[in-house]
């Protein structure tokens, strides 16, 4: 009797605990970008740049693309600043049991970066929720953090999240977190404006209950109301559900003619799109940039998206980039032999802005330390990069505000509108 009870308890706990704690594929393969190899990673000898992006899960293709961008930025300066070699490490912040970013792994990455004196810059994260974990740790250690993809406004601006945000991420009292991508207060608004343009009247707003998804869905909802659209429902979905057919029925009953989902491919946007299509809900679907990746089209299948789904993205599609962006696009294709994902150029830009700061320090004859790099990155002004000419504002956000609305045709993303 006792054994059986113990069994049941054990069985239940092990079900709720992550089901699979197999070898974590934290792929910490150092990329020897310089000429010398096997250099000891001690401060002054090499400059270490690390990235913490999801390598396990459907965001992996997107990450590969961003990592390629980072590598390109390093290669372009010959893999060194003066005599100091740049060593780049590509860290995974996801785990197989979650198939998505994992708070434990992200925390571990941040600690590892803090503990390694050679680490001068931390590029990441992809998910805004993950940034919340590493931001305070890196802030306390004074390491500059540049995110190529976080869009949650609450990370840098007051009034979007909890009362203690963003101060809670800045225990040292200084700003160490920067991002090269426009935030969701812009993105959610662009989506709501586009919803109106599509002629929607009744909108059902869904989110995945994560920092990013809930945040962008909240902005959308507010702006949609201002635009005179009726919000017929707001719900948080279970990102691991096998399907959303019942929810689709509920949205049908509510008479929704447009569904907004604040979420990503990893939080099941593909399945939602499928169930809207198969459940006979005649409504358009708008999703944010977390779905602007080929994995989303692969997961949802073209038939569920074409003519129905619109994806907002903080920038323009890679092939529409101009100036240095166009050079980047051409070089990327030449080097890696494939189309870059939407965020590749942001990975490139994030690394580029850090390296540019280091080079300015080197040219001025100043030492490259965590403190000097942090200060110099913060001074970035009128930086001409692949995303045009932009600066970091007082919050550490980019002044770039370019947004695009995209749709899917024959299995490819097609841009329908660019908003500046």
């Amino acid at each position, binding site marked *: *009797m006792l*054994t*059986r009870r*113990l*069994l*049941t308890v*054990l*069985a239940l706990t*092990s*079900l709720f605990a992550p*089901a*699979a*704690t*197999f070898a974590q594929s934290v792929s910490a393969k150092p990329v020897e970008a310089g000429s010398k190899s096997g250099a000891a990673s001690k401060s002054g000898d090499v400059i270490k740049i690390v990235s913490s992006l999801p390598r*396990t*899960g*459907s965001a*992996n*293709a997107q990450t590969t693309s961003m990592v390629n961008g980072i590598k390109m930025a390093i290669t372009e300066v010959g893999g060194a600043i003066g005599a100091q070699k740049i060593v780049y490490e590509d860290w995974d912040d996801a785990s*197989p049991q979650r*198939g998505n970013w994992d708070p434990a792994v992200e925390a571990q990455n941040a600690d590892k970066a803090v503990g390694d004196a050679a680490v001068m810059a931390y590029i990441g994260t992809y998910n805004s929720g993950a940034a919340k974990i590493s931001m305070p740790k890196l802030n306390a250690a004074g390491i500059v953090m540049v995110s190529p993809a976080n869009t949650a406004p609450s990370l840098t601006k007051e009034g979007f999240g909890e009362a203690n945000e963003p101060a809670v991420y800045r225990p040292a009292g200084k700003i160490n977190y920067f991002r090269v991508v426009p935030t969701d207060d812009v993105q959610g608004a662009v989506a709501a404006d586009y919803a109106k343009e599509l002629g929607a009247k009744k909108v059902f707003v869904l989110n995945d*209950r994560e920092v990013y998804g809930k945040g962008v869905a909240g902005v959308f909802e507010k702006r949609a109301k201002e635009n005179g659209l009726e919000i017929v429902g707001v*719900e*948080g*979905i*279970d990102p*691991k*559900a*096998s*399907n*959303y*057919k*019942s*929810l689709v*029925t*509920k949205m*049908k*009953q509510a008479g929704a003619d447009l569904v907004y989902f604040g979420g990503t*491919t990893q939080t*099941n946007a*593909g*399945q939602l799109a*499928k169930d809207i299509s*198969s*459940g*006979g809900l005649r409504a358009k679907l708008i999703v944010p940039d977390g779905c602007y990746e*080929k*994995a989303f089209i*692969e*997961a*949802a*299948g073209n*038939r569920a998206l074409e003519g129905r789904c619109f994806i907002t993205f903080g920038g323009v599609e890679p092939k529409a980039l101009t100036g240095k962006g166009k050079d980047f696009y051409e070089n990327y294709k030449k080097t890696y032999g494939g189309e870059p994902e939407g965020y590749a150029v942001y990975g490139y830009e994030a690394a580029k802005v850090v390296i540019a700061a280091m080079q300015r320090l080197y040219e001025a004859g100043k030492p490259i330390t965590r403190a000097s790099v942090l200060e110099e990155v913060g001074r970035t002004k009128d930086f001409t990069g692949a995303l045009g000419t932009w600066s970091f504002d007082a919050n550490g956000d980019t002044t770039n505000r370019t947004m695009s609305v995209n749709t899917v045709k024959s299995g490819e993303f097609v841009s329908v509108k660019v908003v500046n």
Partner: protein
Amino acid sequence: MTDTEVFLQQVIYGLSNGMIIALVALGYTMVYGIVELINFAHGDVFTLGGFLALTIVGGLGAAAVLDMNTLGETSNWMLLFGLVVGAGLFCGGLNVAIDKVVYKPLRRAPKLTQLVAAIGVSFILVNIALFWGGVPMDALGGGNAAAAPKDFPEILEGTNLLGEESNVVLRLEDVAIFAITVPLMIGLTLFVKKTRLGRGMRATAQNPIAAKLMGIDTDRVISATFLIGGFLGGAASVMWSVYNNTISFQMGFRAGMDAFTAAVLGGIGSMPGAMLGGILIGLIRAMSDQYIETQWTNVVVFGVLILILVFRPSGLLGLKQREKV
């Protein structure tokens, strides 16, 4: 949509989802009934069934599957039937192999050892699925993102059987789930009730030592149980894939959790209990999504489970357990 239509629709979805859960739950409950092991690897055997089905469909070529609609419905049903049998045999065989290699040597070991071994097997299978997802094949998205969800083609035509104008949607997939799961369940019940091997199973479940003394080849009975449990899991994975049109290496986790809950709800060890539990969980999920809120659905499901376990510790249809010494 009127309230009645909404209710009817949720019943359809609840039953369809529930039937699939019930099939998986049978695998848990049968194995538990015979060897008193909660086979945590079952959910992952289910996952591999889905991957096999997609690989077969992909191997036939996307064009061939798209042609199905022009070839007519018979061929679609034939393909579905073939997949159910193929994935079923594969999962059944895999389950038997796992039993032979891992569980059998541990049969007399403490229950905890067996349980931990089952969890270990589960990890191995999840990783195999992850690896499988990375096989460079068109159907698997070229294998570029091993862990990404994979699109499963629509094998059955997706039109609404109640007419395109009807608010209530009933698709061939819903019908297929009934057409495949109900006969499987009836067949299984008859098999256990009427055949010699079925009698052997019931006897072994009641008392393995006495059964052995009576001349029942209990090893054979155990293998047969794993085979049948695995077969049902494989069949369920095909139905799941056809119904949701997506597979991923993690699909077995949620399916396994739902099915295990269903088995406990109905009374672990009881076959009618697993069927009832599965269908109930499907219905509770649908109703909670509709009338409460999606974000509360898991709370509702597990709340019901806790309530039932408090008032009926052996589950809804659970048998009075024999005392273990």
